[in-house]
């Protein structure tokens, strides 16, 4: 399973890199879709069907909206030649990535194996959760009972996002 996840993660990295460098914006949106749907397969391999359902549906709808927006625009990304400022930022980015990789390898040694970590709170949640919350689906029990505040926060975040969209995309009061 780890080999499969490694291959899929490599595919996701390729897709993300292509999305940055594609000249046509439509193909870069499709390459973003590669990243999302590969994540769905990763979730299924890691035995998380709840996350997989949410990811596949949200990704599809986001892709539809993005394709509609891109088809309405000029579809061309404008490239400019590198000058001194561009070289300086490129060198800074490479140095920062190397530093991050170094500390990442250090921290990786102290981490547990994927999926076999010893979580202190998870044991308490799993133990007799069906009797405590009365729900056969453990995820719903955790989301709406043990972690109710988180769910309420997510709902309020969605409302805030809608308010922001309605405020920005309004022509009547803009003049």
């Amino acid at each position: 399973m780890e080999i499969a996840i490694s291959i899929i993660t490599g595919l996701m990295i390729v897709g993300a890199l292509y999305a940055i460098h594609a000249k046509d914006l439509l193909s870069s949106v499709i390459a973003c879709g590669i990243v999302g749907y590969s994540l769905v397969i990763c979730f299924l391999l890691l035995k998380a069907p709840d996350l997989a359902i949410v990811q596949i549906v949200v990704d599809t709808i986001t892709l539809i909206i993005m394709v509609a927006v891109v088809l309405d625009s000029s579809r061309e990304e404008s490239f400019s030649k590198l000058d001194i400022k561009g070289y300086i930022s490129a060198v800074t980015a490479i140095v920062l990535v190397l530093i991050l990789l170094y500390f990442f390898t250090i921290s990786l040694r102290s981490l547990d194996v994927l999926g076999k970590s010893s979580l202190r709170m998870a044991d308490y949640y799993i133990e007799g959760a069906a009797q405590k919350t009365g729900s056969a689906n453990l995820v719903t029990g955790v989301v709406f009972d043990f972690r109710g505040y988180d769910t309420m926060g997510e709902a309020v975040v969605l409302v805030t996002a809608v308010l922001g969209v309605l405020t920005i995309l309004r022509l009547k009061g803009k003049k």
Partner: protein
Amino acid sequence: MIPFRKEQGVGEKDKLKTRNVKMKGMTLIVRKTTQLIAGMIFMYGIYVIIHGHLTPGGGFAGGVIVAGSLILVTLAFGGDFLKLLKEETGTTIVESFATIMVILIATAGFLFGTHIFFNNFLPKGIVGELVSAGVLPLYNIFVGTEVASSIFIIFLSLIIFKEESPQ
């Protein structure tokens, strides 16, 4: 100054009326397929929401599926500009109502048993049955309504912005 302004306003209104603002639909094949499929997608979303405490899924996933069916119908059939505006107003009301209901149910936990926020105050029933788990199905239903309406509002406002803006 004032008559000039008035004149300008009237002209703009006329332009909006005569510009024939109607979102174009898609071809006959897409419309027929949508007629056959959209209802089933909607029912599947409702199923995922209602069985959220038994099977994988729940309010968020089911809400997005319901929103997907509504988006499919809007994209395939198009619609009048004024009808879209009316739909947006109605969906905004539904979304606010659902969010307030979630918070009210959570606050109702203060009234029963141990007085805490997010208290599961209804009887829990037998694990695995459709009517069980106390208030969790209610949370699922209202969160699902809220998610569906918010995603549909974002989509509708994008369409209305495109139709409304001058070419």
